[in-house]
């Protein structure tokens, strides 16, 4: 019995110290990315551009299609509930506020984590496993500035644009269902929406959220890739961890940001 107890304690201790160690390494990694950003921009501007293509442009289809469907579902559900209270015109407000405040930044960040984040982790993990990163170091090319920096900034710049597109397409989806299909009055739909959606309070806060999520998702994805054990199993585990950790980070950060932004409104 005491051996079992000691063994359990040892495992817990190992997990905790390992986790703290990884957290410290992740923080140093993040600070290094920021410190070498100037170098990445000066020497590898074209690469950052290429990463905007891979992280942003290639995520467009999934973002636009899911935005459209999320907006359509909000339109349907919102209409169903609101018409019980005789205020079906408020469906525009409901769709626009839910999208700009919460669903736009959060769902597009979740999609971005699984579409672009996992790809980044797998790519960097594999580069490490095939010793491309060590080869770069041998050639005196800084891998953080050459490989990590462009991917980080590509992701951070793409995320708010993707979230804005998600919200805009979602509002259009809500409009399609509520006005075109169900027949809610078009003027009331838009005017009620414009009366209650505030530019600073709702739209700018949504963009701030998506920038924060962009930083979190790309930093986690790049770190998991960089830290992955150089084996096939290690890379696959790191890819899974990217999706899980960044989804949890998005939802947790969303709660914190919402608590700060919409206090007392």
């Amino acid at each position: 019995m005491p051996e079992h107890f000691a063994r359990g304690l040892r495992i817990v201790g190992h997990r905790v110290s390992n986790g703290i160690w990884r957290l410290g390494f992740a923080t140093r990694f993040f600070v290094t990315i920021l410190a070498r950003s100037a170098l990445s921009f000066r020497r590898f501007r074209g690469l950052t551009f290429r990463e905007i293509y891979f992280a942003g442009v290639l995520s467009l289809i999934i973002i636009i299609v899911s935005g459209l469907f999320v907006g359509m579902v909000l339109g349907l559900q919102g209409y169903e509930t609101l018409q019980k209270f005789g205020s079906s015109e408020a469906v525009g407000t409901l769709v626009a506020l839910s999208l700009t405040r919460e669903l736009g930044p959060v769902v597009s960040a979740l999609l971005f984590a699984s579409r672009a984040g996992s790809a980044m982790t797998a790519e960097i993990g594999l580069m490490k496993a095939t010793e491309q990163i060590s080869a770069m170091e041998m050639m005196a090319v800084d891998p953080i500035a050459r490989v990590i920096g462009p991917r980080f900034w590509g992701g951070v710049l793409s995320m708010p644009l993707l979230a804005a597109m998600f919200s805009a397409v979602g509002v259009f989806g809500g409009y399609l269902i509520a006005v075109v299909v169900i027949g809610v009055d078009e003027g009331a739909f838009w005017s009620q929406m414009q009366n209650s959606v505030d530019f600073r309070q709702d739209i700018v806060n949504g963009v701030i959220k998506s920038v924060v999520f962009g930083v979190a998702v790309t930093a986690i994805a790049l770190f998991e890739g960089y830290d992955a054990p150089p084996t096939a199993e290690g890379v696959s585990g790191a890819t899974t961890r990217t999706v899980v950790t960044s989804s949890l980070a998005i939802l947790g950060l969303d709660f914190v940001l919402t608590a700060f932004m919409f206090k007392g409104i």
Partner: protein
Amino acid sequence: MDRTLLDLWVGIFVAAGIAALFVLALKVGNASTTFNTGATYRVIAEFDNIGGLKVRAPVKSSGVVVGRVDDIQFDGKKFTARVTMNIDKRYEFPKDTSLSILTSGLLGEQYVGMEAGGDSDMLKDGDTVKLTQSAVVLEKLIGQFLYNKAAEGVSK
């Protein structure tokens, strides 16, 4: 450095993202009314009770939105609520205009209603409106109703 197909795609992506932000700001949000702040004048009013009035609530006259509430503060000397409103420059109101806090619909949002008076002088920037009527507080209304009922019972 030459132009590549990649540039075209990234260009489309960035343009679409910025266009989406503009759509959100102008079509979905109220940026079109937030930005033209130059064309308003400030009017101040003191209310005994503002009920649930909030900053950015509309100011309506004859049901038309003519301005928005800019700031609400408590006046510690007079123990009243000081409401500052931005009124559209296109609309002028007489000096003896009265303001009341009304509710749109049974459960709707509260707004400030403007009832134009008959004075020939018009309200100017920074003027204070004297005639104000507080928000109706449901509890007080019910209390008053019960009190009146009780008083009726006694007099019979």
